């Protein structure tokens, strides 16, 4: 981010006014060339132009320069259905749809009490079905991610104070409509819901709509709601286009607990059921929540290891245990150095780390030495810690998979593996004692989210780094000339979950590897050989003569650079294409890996 832009955003944060946003938006436009471009379409049933400056600013804060198309007033459906519509012609990366209930289903909004129960259900049904149909049709014309706002609950419930006690109220109806809409549209690849109702509740039902602007210009979003909507949209943009952060690296003294343990001792640190100890306890709880969502935790602290061990072992109010941390650096060397080591140990990029430290000097040092690390601006009041962590949006993502839920455990298993490796005399010895199992299967609805997640996130062991969208992935799964495979692995220490993806496509004579990637957790275990050998099997079964792949180098995918050479592919030309004649394949399924029966499923097949 340029210094100018940083300055502008800082000024805005001090006084987040309407004029401030307008001014900041102009500054953003003038530094657009330094931002990552992203194409956005806004479709609304009302005048939504006023949102644009806010979106420009909030997207810029996350490094994105938005190019916005605004659909004509109240023509959401036409914009989605017509392949020649401005929205589709704009070739957006993301489409945001905002609708008022009074616009899409007037009876439910305006005549609720006059409706029979069956009519209420029918109206809600129609609303969901029509929206789902439009989005399904849109999916055929555009791979754009779509984010649909849900409906706000009524400001003035028709039954007044009785609304909360009464059965089958308008409030209930809207709530049900929202939940059915979420289920229905989320089933379409690449479609998500923006919780507009929650944003309205957040600024207050009484404050989200600006009545005079609504009546004068059908522009209902108030000055309070506009930045809230834009911030949420920017988080979606970041989740869609950015590489999500993977690991929260924490300082200890005055971060996880109050006071310096080396000075006050275990019994002296602030942590417990009363102020200020309860503040730190709740902060630890929020950190634990991130861990459960699949975010890795690490410690980067200047301390005596023995003091810290004692806090973890003896303090009754510690919420986090040492086992929650995938990497621990407690020493007196400078923190950026520790940071680099943590990234190396966890096998993730430095740019996937977030640093939380109460000490401004440490933060400044980190920002200077490692600008790729997201160093959070931690306020001096620990009550604000949780808010800062949440509002940073650093870990926002659009999935929650079984792998995410188990990630913390998996890293603990990984530590046990490393120990075994250190004891083993040779690599083969180690691999044998690991008792690796691998199963490869065609991607199905259960494995889809994780596969998409891997396509979005894998930076290191990947030959093409193609970030296929959810829609594109669905297209390839349904294409009879494509094979889309997921690889699951496990060993005596536990299940690794899905750690590999291969996408291959064929013409009459050759199969082409579109994507081939593995989670860095399992590099060095010959698992890639198993996956390649599966592709060989797939291609042979189709009577093809060659298997071809390309390597597109990036700043990070060096680990996959020799994949093809190692497996006897020859470089066909200078273009980076590698070719393997299928009558003479110099490798097979690795001996150290056991095939799991699941491989037999569907087109997963077994060599």
């Amino acid at each position, binding site marked *: 981010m340029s210094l100018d832009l940083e300055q502008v955003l800082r000024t805005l944060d001090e006084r987040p006014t*309407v*004029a*401030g946003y307008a*001014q900041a938006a102009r500054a953003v436009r003038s530094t657009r060339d330094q931002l990552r471009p992203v194409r956005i379409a806004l479709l609304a049933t009302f005048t939504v132009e006023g949102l644009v400056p806010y979106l420009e600013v909030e997207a810029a804060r996350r490094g994105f320069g938005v190019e916005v198309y605004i659909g004509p007033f109240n023509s959401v459906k036409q914009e989605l259905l017509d392949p020649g519509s401005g929205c589709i012609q704009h070739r957006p990366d993301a489409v945001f749809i905002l609708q008022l209930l009074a616009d899409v289903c007037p009876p439910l909004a305006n005549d609720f009490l006059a409706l029979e129960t069956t009519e209420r259900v029918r109206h809600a049904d129609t609303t969901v079905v029509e929206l789902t149909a439009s989005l399904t049709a849109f999916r055929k014309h555009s791979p754009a991610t779509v984010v649909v706002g849900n409906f706000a609950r009524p400001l003035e419930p028709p039954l007044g104070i009785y609304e909360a006690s009464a059965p089958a109220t308008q409030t209930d109806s809207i709530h049900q409509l929202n939940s059915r809409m979420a289920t229905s549209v989320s089933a379409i690849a690449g479609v998500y819901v923006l919780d507009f109702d929650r944003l309205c509740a957040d600024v207050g039902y009484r404050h989200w709509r600006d009545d*005079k602007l609504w*009546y004068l210009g059908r522009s209902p979003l*108030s000055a309070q709601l506009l930045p809230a909507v834009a911030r949420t949209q920017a988080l979606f943009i970041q989740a869609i286009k950015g590489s999500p952060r993977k690991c929260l690296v924490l300082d200890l003294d005055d971060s996880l607990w109050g006071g310096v343990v080396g000075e006050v001792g275990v019994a002296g640190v602030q942590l417990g059921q009363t102020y200020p100890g309860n503040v730190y306890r709740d902060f630890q709880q929020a950190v634990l929540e991130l861990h459960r969502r699949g975010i890795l935790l690490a410690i980067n602290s200047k301390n005596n290891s023995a003091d810290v061990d004692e806090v973890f072992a003896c303090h009754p109010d510690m919420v986090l245990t040492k086992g929650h941390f995938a990497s621990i650096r407690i020493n007196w060397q400078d923190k950026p150095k520790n940071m680099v080591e943590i990234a190396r140990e966890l096998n993730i990029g430095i740019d996937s780390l977030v640093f939380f430290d109460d000490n401004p000097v440490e933060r400044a040092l980190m920002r200077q030495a490692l600008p790729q690390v997201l160093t959070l601006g931690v306020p001096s009041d620990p009550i604000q810690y949780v808010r800062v962590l949440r509002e940073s949006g650093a870990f926002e993502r659009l999935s929650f998979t079984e792998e995410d839920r188990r990630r913390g455990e998996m890293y603990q298993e990984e530590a046990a593996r490393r120990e075994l490796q250190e004891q083993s005399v040779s690599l083969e010895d180690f691999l044998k004692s690991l008792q690796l199992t691998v199963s490869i299967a065609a991607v199905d609805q259960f494995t889809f989210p994780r596969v998409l997640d891997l396509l979005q996130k894998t930076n290191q062991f990947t030959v093409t780094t193609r970030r296929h969208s959810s829609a594109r992935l669905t297209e390839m799964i349904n294409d009879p000339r494509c094979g889309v495979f997921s690889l699951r692995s496990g060993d005596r220490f536990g299940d690794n979950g899905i750690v590999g993806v291969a996408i291959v496509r064929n013409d009459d004579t050759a199969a082409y590897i579109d994507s081939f990637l593995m989670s860095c957790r399992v590099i060095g275990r010959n698992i890639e050989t198993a996956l390649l050998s599966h592709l060989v099997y797939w291609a042979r079964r189709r009577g093809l003569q060659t298997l071809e792949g390309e390597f597109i180098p990036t700043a990070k995918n060096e680990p996959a650079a020799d994949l093809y050479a190692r497996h006897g592919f020859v470089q066909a030309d200078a273009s980076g294409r590698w070719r393997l004649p299928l009558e003479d394949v110099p490798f097979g399924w690795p001996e150290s890996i056991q095939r799991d029966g699941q491989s037999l499923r569907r087109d997963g097949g077994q060599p």
Partner: protein
Amino acid sequence: MSREARPAPGSPAEDRLCRTMAAVLGVPSECLADDASPETISEWDSMSHLNLVMALESEFGISVSADDVLELRSVAAIRRLLRARGVEA
């Protein structure tokens, strides 16, 4: 027009109102003499007019009615409204 001390029309007015309007409309505050209006400033279109109203409300802590919005067709009109609400621009 009141005679209280305030920048003469056409001078580089740097009071709060001018700063706010300049920020919203994206024009230099010299353009915002009292007779400036949507007719003389092309950036002052109907969309930025609504934005301007929101900015006035948040900047000066006042609430503007729908009828007021239609009345505020010049810098002078805005100054009159602020004065009527007892706000120092």
